[in-house]
């Protein structure tokens, strides 16, 4: 009984948070977001446009900037794209989110620039709007709600006003 009650309280608290985000007015000029990591041979692993992370970025009030480039022709959730295609598509992205759940060797902007010097041309790098997604998000079935809250905080700028984030942290 106690476990059921806990589960109910947990679900209500999560759904309240999510309702606020999902019912929020979307800005017409929503910030553009790229979610990626750079592989060891210099290509860039990105989420496909139909993937749930890409959809969550849009639910959180952003626009996934790679939706046109990262195809959706098979069941895979990610694809490796060439750096030049990524550079052309995401150079003007407002927010970059680096997926460190696979490549965890990225803590600072210097680490990012070591992976590719070209990253210094990216608008988000120049504006200090680079985030890393770490932790065990993909292993937590209840983590999606927290990630959506994190994405919303980052996209709306609430993360700068002291909102605590669960999976995202700013790369400095």
């Amino acid at each position, binding site marked *: 009984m106690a476990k059921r009650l806990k589960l109910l309280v947990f679900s209500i608290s999560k759904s309240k948070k999510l309702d606020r985000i999902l019912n929020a007015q979307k800005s017409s000029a929503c910030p553009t977001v790229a979610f990626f990591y750079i592989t060891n041979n*210099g290509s860039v692993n990105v989420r496909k446009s139909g993937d749930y992370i890409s959809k969550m970025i849009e639910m959180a009030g952003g626009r996934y900037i790679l939706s046109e480039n990262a195809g959706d022709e098979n069941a895979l959730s990610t694809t490796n794209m060439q750096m030049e295609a990524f550079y052309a598509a995401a150079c003007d992205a407002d927010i970059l989110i680096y997926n460190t759940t696979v490549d965890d060797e990225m803590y600072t902007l210097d680490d990012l620039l070591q992976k590719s010097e070209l990253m210094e041309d990216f608008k988000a790098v120049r504006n200090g709007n680079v985030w890393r997604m770490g932790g065990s998000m993909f292993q937590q079935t209840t983590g999606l709600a927290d990630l959506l809250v994190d994405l919303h905080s980052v996209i709306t700028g609430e993360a700068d006003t002291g909102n605590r984030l669960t999976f995202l942290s700013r790369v400095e």
Partner: protein
Amino acid sequence: MPDKSRYALGYVLLIILLFALLAVSTVTGSVSLGELLSQKDQYTAEQIIKGIRLPRLIAAALLGGALSVSGFLLQTFFNNPIAGPFVLGISSGAKLTVALSMIFFLGRGIKISSAGLIFAAFAGSMLCMGLILLISGRVRSMSLLIICGVMIGYICSAITDFAVTFADDSNIVNLHNWSMGSFSGTGWGDVRTMALVVPAAVICAFLLSKPMGAYQLGETYAANMGVNVRRFRITLILLSGLLSACVTAFAGPISFVGVAAPHLIKSLFKTARPIVIIPACFLGGAVFCLFCDLIARTLLAPTELSISSVTAVFGAPIVIWLMLKRRKGAAK
């Protein structure tokens, strides 16, 4: 056709092909020329060409040339047209030591420098070369030597896979991507290192053309001509190992270029004289790899094929043809 005219024609053809491929590759890619020209920000278009494509193309040309010359040196050493760094398992040895170094250093958060990667690859290729030399002392049949080389390659790949099984997730992803072979991710810093190592080694090989020509006629003949055969053989092996190690360190294992390119060049020039063939092999390898790289990065753009898959598609049939031709020659 007189030999000199054929050589001149061959060189002109290779140089034209090299520059044509460089030009086509510069304006072709996952971002098309039209898209580049229509970029609002001209700086983006410039960066794609200067910062991404040019270093990659130079790397493909330098490393393709290096592989081809490395293959030619091995073919001279073993007096076998099918010998090459990939076929003899030397590239797999380099792959093994680079993989082990990556697991060891990256696991401790230490980034390996270009020089470190070359050193690791060189150690691996020398290890396999040592094994091949040991076997070659006991085995007279060249086909058996090749089979032993292939087996050594399998052993190295098996040990690499074994090490990868117990590596971290991130290392597994990194090693998997690297072992596919690719020229992508090459920056100007890498090109500078390659430009120091590869031309120096190729020039050294070219300077050995005369003793190499004598060695092609047999060890006894070379010794009678005043060649210090032992020292010459060691130099040949070191140069070949250094060239193939450099390729593996920067681009991962690339198959069949070391066999296919020298063979095509020898067929084009109708000679195996090192003084003619070494520079031509370098140009031929560069052309072959530039062509394969162009296919690798444009066929399924914006994603990319592994360079080794493309070189195998074009290179392996040449090796089969070579083996059949050799068998036919032996039967006669």
